[in-house]
């Protein structure tokens, strides 16, 4: 039942917000929806930890430790973003960002807010369906749904550049996902040969995984390549990452945070599901090599763009490409430590990335620009909380101790050395260090320095406290992971390990 409610509530909340029209009512529904979704996600996690996988409707919806981890992270990110969005859009409205030439009565603002508050629940619905669908075809439909629900969120500001970003996002995503659909069709073909069934269950992951060892090898090889390219495009693995900096920098901050910390996980989740099938059929070697190559490539591509970046919103996008590369690489290294490291990294990244986006959003709204060149530095004087949190978030996301991403990256590295991937590990460390230094120099220049004499930028409580509460979660997580969460992560890693 909990599975059904998880999907129904956001699905209903979207149209509901459309009819509410009044801003306070829309804000309240949005926050309340995601609070309920997070509570349900926690209930689902508890149930999965207590009594194993849950399924509903003859296995149409299915949740094991892996899916409930993704559901939990998505729900967390969605709630954080909805709380931040309240302050963010109020600020936009006060500064008349929405007002266009012929708009006198503020109708444009109402229209745009309605668009945001009715599309985000649908967006989250699609992400939750990705994690809960048992059928791999439905999983594909849901991933395509995340693109469709978010295209108009990317064009939110209606600037020329946001149209450009949305066009790249939709077209590159569309081509990528059509490859993934081809991969799904081939997987179904391979399953068809051994099970000979036309029923829905023929594409159900829980059924396929039992018979995965007998799947036709040449078919699965091609299918996995297509799936890697397809879901890799959606996750933003290089060289299919080119939509990412544009979409992340043009979308409103809460949407960008959901793309970076929600959709990324969902796309990787799809990849992991197929990875399990492919390694059971082909042995782990084939998939691992591909994943290592693409992972290192993504990290390597991110390095120069981080070093010479001009805009802090785009900097975050390249950091996201880098982290996506790290997770793919960790999956490629495999072994108990590599896989555990990947899920730890996914969890910590999903908690840390929104903080960076929120700080960047606060700073961008304060300065009216996202270019380093136009910011004079010394933000810590006019924005003591956001500035400090941005610096702290930078240290956290680049993996410096004591923050939790250090633990996950260290775990991955130990897994890599244990698996004998010496050359790849050396490259991994070099890329990490390069990104750490580039990122830190940029953000330190932005935040520290003499006072340029700006007025106090932290007047909005919603924006300030969403940053502060998220920052405290990150600090706590650096020293203490709740035991059930760790068991969940171990459970997810165990599902992947069963394939190796």
């Amino acid at each position: 039942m909990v599975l059904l409610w998880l999907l129904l509530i956001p699905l209903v909340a979207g149209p509901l917000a459309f009819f509410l029209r009044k801003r306070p009512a829309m804000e309240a529904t949005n926050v309340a929806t995601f609070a309920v979704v997070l509570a349900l996600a926690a209930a689902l996690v508890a149930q999965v930890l207590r009594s194993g996988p849950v399924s509903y409707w003859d296995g149409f919806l299915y949740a094991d430790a892996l899916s409930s981890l993704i559901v939990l992270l998505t729900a967390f990110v969605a709630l954080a973003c909805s709380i931040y969005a309240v302050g963010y859009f109020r600020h936009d409205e006060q500064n008349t960002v929405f007002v266009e030439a012929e708009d006198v009565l503020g109708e444009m603002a109402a229209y745009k807010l309605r668009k945001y508050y009715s599309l985000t629940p649908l967006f989250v619905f699609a992400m939750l369906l990705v994690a809960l669908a048992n059928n791999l075809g439905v999983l594909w439909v849901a991933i395509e749904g995340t693109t469709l629900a978010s295209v108009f969120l990317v064009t939110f500001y209606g600037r020329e550049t946001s149209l450009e970003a949305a066009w790249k996002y939709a077209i590159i995503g569309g081509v990528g996902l059509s490859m993934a659909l081809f991969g799904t069709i081939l997987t179904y073909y391979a399953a068809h040969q051994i099970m000979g069934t036309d029923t829905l269950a023929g594409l159900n992951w829980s059924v396929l995984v039992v018979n995965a060892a007998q799947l036709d090898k040449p078919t699965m090889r091609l299918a996995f390549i297509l799936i890697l390219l397809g879901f890799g495009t959606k996750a933003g693995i290089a060289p299919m990452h080119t939509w990412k900096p544009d979409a992340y920098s043009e979308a409103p901050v809460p949407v960008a945070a959901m793309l970076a910390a929600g959709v990324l996980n969902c796309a990787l989740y799809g990849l992991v599901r197929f990875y399990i099938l492919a390694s059971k059929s082909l042995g782990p070697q084939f998939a691992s090599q591909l994943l290592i190559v693409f992972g290192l490539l993504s990290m390597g591509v991110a390095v120069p763009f981080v070093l010479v970046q001009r805009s802090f919103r785009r900097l975050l996008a390249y950091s996201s490409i880098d982290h996506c590369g790290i997770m793919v690489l960790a999956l490629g290294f495999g072994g108990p430590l590599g896989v555990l490291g990947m899920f730890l990294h996914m969890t910590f990244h999903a908690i840390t990335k929104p903080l960076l986006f929120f700080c960047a959003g606060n700073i961008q709204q304060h300065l009216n620009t996202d270019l380093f060149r136009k910011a004079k530095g010394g933000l810590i004087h006019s924005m003591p909380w956001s500035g400090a949190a941005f610096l702290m978030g930078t240290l956290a996301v680049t993996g410096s101790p004591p923050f939790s991403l250090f633990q996950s990256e260290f775990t991955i590295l130990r897994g890599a050395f244990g698996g004998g991937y010496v050359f790849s590990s050396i490259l991994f460390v070099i890329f990490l260090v390069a990104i750490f230094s580039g990122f830190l120099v940029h953000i330190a220049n932005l935040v520290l320095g003499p006072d340029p004499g700006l007025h106090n930028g932290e007047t909005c409580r919603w924006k300030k406290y969403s940053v502060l509460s998220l920052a405290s979660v990150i600090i706590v997580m650096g020293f203490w992971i709740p035991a059930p969460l760790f068991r969940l992560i171990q459970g997810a890693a165990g599902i992947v390990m069963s394939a190796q």
Partner: protein
Amino acid sequence: MSFVHDPQFGDRMITLMAALVLVLQIAMVGQRWLITNIRMFALQSFLLAAIAGTIAFFNHSNHIYIAAALTFVVKTLVLPILLERIVARVGIQQEIEPLINVPLSVLISGGLTLVGYIVAESFYHPEETSASAALGHNTLAIAIALFLIGFFMMLNRRKALTQVLGLLSMENGLFLAAISLTYGMPLVVEIGIFFDVLVAVMVLGILVYRIGETFDSMDVSKLRRLRG
């Protein structure tokens, strides 16, 4: 009318229609007018619906009939009408300006068809299955060729709407692949895919419209302000 029930007759019909689908795809690469292009896409989708219908007829399978009906309604009627309305609304000039000239484009499409046959070779096991179950398996090569040529069309064209057409013909290739390999996906998935395609075209259509309005042009090579 006994020959109608002969699987061999069905097989020939399917092969013939699949060949026409491929010819239409290459013709789309070769011709220059946007409206013609949309109508060719409609005709191609109609042929796909007919292929699905034929397979359904010989296998007495209800869910393939539904897929065929959906293809007919969505891709032969609704999408072309939507696309033509966008063309009328934006008031763009009608000519497609490919980056590579027409003879070379057609030649490349021919090459991609060959690639399709080479890739399909590895999945082609006709001797393993009975005559009626093997129906339409030889169209896989054409499906892969459609997919590749559709991709090439997207790269080769600068106008936003023609890229959407390229994406749609890639999707047609996927539909043919699904039909020829496994007689379509499970029905829920099939309906989900149709829903996604329909919404995707609406979303892209609105984007095309707004790009046309904002930039006074549908040339996506003008979208180049975001870099680095």
